[in-house]
């Protein structure tokens, strides 16, 4: 159990030294959990904040752990970054105030819950949970313990998307009736022969709460496309867009009421992966607004578009390009340069939350609602059913089968 009694004193910037250095009592000692590609891409965004001191990294893969330590040490020009093969050691450390979680999807929710229970504040990559129930558990845990949690839905902190949201809210495209979100086609992972677990990998920890399955490279290297360890592209990327949609509509505490879709799945004779290759799901809000999640096209073709009765506005995610009709909408946009790949402002928002004990912009409730829309899309595809959903009670109105898929048992000892 946690270490909040030894947590640092977070005080306003008035106690900072005149040279801009951060007083020791104002530092946030950070540890990282999971140091794959995503973590390595944005660790420097954390370290650029003077009040953050990244003191430890953890990963169940020895090769990644080693290279992450080298990266952090190189940044700080010392050799002080500590390594942990098991993240639970990080959570047990009393000197760690907060964690940045960038594991595989299967661990995001549970590691966040365990971190919150250990008294740490959390910045977690998306998707934030494996099931709708886990998302609710995460939101409730953070609410109960006052954990300051920021999901990696950084587009909420990016000017292009903020402008798009503002344009829609101010009625510049007229009355909104449709939101279109496009993510890329998922791959079909071919069946491969099983091999021994690679040296330096703690495979049991890697699997975590997900059901045991013997090691296979097709799964290990493409876990995103299996129902047990992730839920495919709709959750993996779609949650960014559902989050923006919720943000724009001001529906952060609710969501659509109906889901229906079609999908094309991989051939079980030749492929091991399970999640859709192409799909389209239509969601309907009680207000009548339709949201269309479409999985098609290439990686760079992804976008979100809001369509109203007097025009539309769209952000192309790859380029951060905003387009609109009428074009005059764009004249209201201030000149901005940062895109989704700059997470600095989003991290800054989290640090502000830690200082003030207030929830950041992508807090657990909003993140859970955004994620649950994607999970509901997937459930409608998996079951081939039109699902009616009560977002207030988070219950299905018409499908006992779907109700049973709201949660999964976790494999011991990887429980919350």
């Amino acid at each position, binding site marked *: 159990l946690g270490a909040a*009694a030894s947590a640092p004193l977070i005080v306003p910037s008035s106690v900072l030294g005149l040279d801009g250095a951060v007083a020791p009592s104002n530092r946030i000692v950070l540890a990282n959990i999971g140091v794959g590609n995503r973590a390595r891409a944005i660790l420097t965004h954390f370290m650029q904040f003077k009040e953050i001191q990244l003191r430890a990294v953890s990963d169940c893969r020895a090769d990644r752990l080693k290279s992450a330590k080298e990266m952090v040490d190189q940044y700080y020009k010392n050799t002080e970054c500590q390594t942990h093969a098991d993240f639970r050691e990080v959570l047990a450390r009393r000197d760690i105030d907060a964690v940045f979680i960038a594991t595989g999807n299967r661990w995001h929710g549970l590691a966040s819950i365990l971190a919150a229970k250990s008294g740490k504040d959390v910045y977690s990559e998306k998707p934030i949970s494996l099931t709708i129930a886990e998302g609710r558990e995460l939101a409730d845990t953070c609410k109960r313990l006052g954990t300051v949690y920021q999901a990696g839905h950084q587009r909420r902190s990016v000017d292009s998307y903020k402008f798009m949201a503002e344009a829609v809210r101010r009625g510049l495209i007229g009355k909104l009736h449709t939101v279109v979100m496009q993510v890329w086609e998922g791959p079909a992972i071919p069946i491969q022969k099983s091999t021994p677990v690679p040296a330096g990998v703690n495979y049991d920890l890697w699997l975590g709460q997900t059901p045991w399955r013997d090691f296979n490279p097709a799964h290990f290297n493409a876990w995103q496309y299996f129902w047990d360890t992730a839920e495919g592209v709709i959750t993996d990327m779609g949650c960014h867009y559902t989050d923006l949609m919720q943000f724009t509509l001001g529906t952060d505490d609710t969501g659509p009421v109906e889901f229906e879709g079609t999908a094309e799945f991989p051939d079980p004779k030749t492929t091991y992966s399970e999640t859709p290759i192409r799909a389209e799901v239509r969601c309907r809000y009680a207000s009548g607004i339709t949201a269309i999640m479409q999985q098609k096209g290439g990686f760079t073709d992804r976008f979100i578009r809001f369509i109203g009765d007097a025009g539309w506005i769209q952000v192309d995610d790859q380029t951060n390009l905003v387009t609109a009709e009428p074009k005059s909408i764009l004249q209201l946009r201030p000149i901005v340069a940062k895109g989704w790949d700059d997470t600095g402002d989003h991290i800054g928002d989290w640090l502000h939350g830690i200082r003030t004990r207030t929830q950041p912009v992508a807090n657990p409730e909003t993140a859970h609602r955004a994620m649950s829309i994607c999970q509901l899309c997937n459930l409608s*595809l998996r079951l081939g059913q039109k699902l009616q959903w009560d977002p207030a009670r988070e219950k299905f109105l018409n499908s006992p089968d779907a109700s049973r898929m709201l949660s*999964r048992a976790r494999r011991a000892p990887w429980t919350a």
Partner: protein
Amino acid sequence: MKLFAQKTSVAASRQSAAICKNEINAAVSRHAATRRFVAVSMLVAALTAVTHQCLAALTDVEIDQAFTAAATYQIGQPRDALARIAEAARDTRPGEPRRAQLEQKMIAFLQSGATLEAKRLICRQLWVIGSDASLPALEKLLLNPDTTAMACFALMNYPSTAADAALRRAIDKTLNRAWTGKSFAKDDEARQQLDDEASPIILGIIDTLGNRRDPTSVLRLSQLAKSESGRLAVAALALDALGRIGTPDAAKALRAASASPDTAHSDAAKFALLHCAQRLENDGNTSDAIAIYRQLLSDQSAQFLRLQCGAIIGLANSRASQAPAAMEAAMKNPNPILRATAIAQIPKLNGKSVAPFVKALTSAPPEVQALLIPALAERGEVSARPAITLLASSKNPDVSLAALQALGHIGIARQVPLLVEALNPSSPPQNAAAALASLRQMKGDEANGAIVAAMEGAPTGVKADLMDVLVSRNAKAALPGMMSFTHSMDPKLYPAAFNAVSRLGDTAQFAPLVAALASLRNRAAEEDAERSITQFASRLGEAAKPSEVVLAEFQRATTPAVRSSLLRVLGETAGPGALEAVLAATKDADDTVRDTAVRTLANWPDASAATPTLALARSIERPVYQVLLLRGYLRMLGLPNQRTPEQTLQAYAEGLQLAKRPDEKRLVLSGLAAAPVPGALKLASPMIEDAAIQSEAALAVVQIIKANPAAERELARASLQKIAAGAADANLRKEATALLGRIH
């Protein structure tokens, strides 16, 4: 008779399946290259319904075959047999005989010698469709460490309480201890230590019972929660499960556990109690929840800080009458986390109870003021407005910044001067940014009037900022004020005014803005103003006839500077009459006007000016103008137009006659390559001999031939042979050789 009916039904469904399979195959063939399977819910909703029916038509024999094939499944093998079983399961509904029949087959499968991986995937199906019928089979799986997790997975959401009973029995059997109804019976044979086999079983079951919120397991879990040697993980998880069950009985058990002398155990029980309170509150049992929060608030254990934070949050969330006092006390606590946590709950309080916090705004230390301000602003606490307004001038930078930000939420017109003052260049940049954001955010039309009034006497930079604010506030009433600034002499102010009016205005403002451009007394920044007018015209669209307005003003203009300025705008708006005016101006007596007109003509935005531009290029004397106009002409040939291919060829030929420099000839070649009209090859081919443009000519010729290999074959062959033999670029030589082959 019954058998016959079944057979008929099977035959019918097989026929239906054959039809469906044909439809699927048609769909599959569209994606044949990808070799991907088109599953049930693909393509369109209408077809999906059919494909469901199709797959549901699997016969008993086919399903049995699938189970037989699935029994030997190992990872790394095709999984189609298991996929067929999954589809069959998905196509049944609760209560249907087909589902019950399928479940029976699954039960037999679980009891067979099938591989563990196959059984696990069958458990995944039972997770969704399982009924009480499969409980005995799953209960057996619970008792085996290799299969307990898959059984828990299946049982997670079984609707019947019989599943809970099965889980509880599995605990007793694993511990080898009988349950008396209130406690475990004493038994010498019982497992005192949980070994590696028993531990995952017990942990998995406890977790599942906790998540299922089984109230009947509270007593068992209370027993398991006792911190006995060798069972620490079990005890901790049992406490956690009691918290998740969250009933009054669970709370009672946790209260008892929280009195343990073992500090770690006691703390774990208290956190579980906090969880229990949240569950009680969510279930509507607020009074029990509040009682727990109050108990935890007075806790003095090592975890007091986190527990007190949790208790305060819980009290505030439950709108407990005790919440304000607890928060007020915490606000005065020296611990900054507890203090900040308490203050962060202020937005949840009701109206009257917030008074102590408003009062504290004036007396609290700065670090508390900086937290109180946003908390009160977030709840829109207007009673805090006077104090926050005063604090905007605080010497503490955190406090003044927080106050300026807060005024965006709760400020009114009266606070506008204060915010405008913060925009002053002498203010800290973060304060200016906050004030600007608040001015944009502040509600009410009265604020617009106050902003306009505040512009009087403000420095130029501030005026420009305020106009931008007014645009973002869509404050059309401010347009007259903005328009007055377009007549300013200040070259930093009037462009900002032009920009603001062009973004906010409508047709009524267009003519006055053009007139303002004509009447500028200081033209140092006239090009910025011209750009604003051009963008304004583009935004208004042709319906507003912007070029007519500009033309009328041009015709009224007398000075060369103004006429030149308006000519530039005409060159952007184009439209009827504009071209004629510009052409006339190319003969103007004034050098400046003439120069501007020629350049404007050369930059004309559409192809309508091509012919007069060429004519002028031919007749004009100054070489510089000849070059400008010829380049402009060649550029215009590439714009959308209504010419026939013959006319286009003629146009390029005329351009080529005038082209003297390699650059101009390159433009001709580039145009011909992009628009390979018949005859283009005749025009381009001779240029291969021109050493200065040989490479470009060769490239253009290759492109022209590629676009139409059948045309002018002899000339094409001869040209390609020259390129294949002598082009400097090896790739081009290769391409020419390949094209020669195609022509043959």
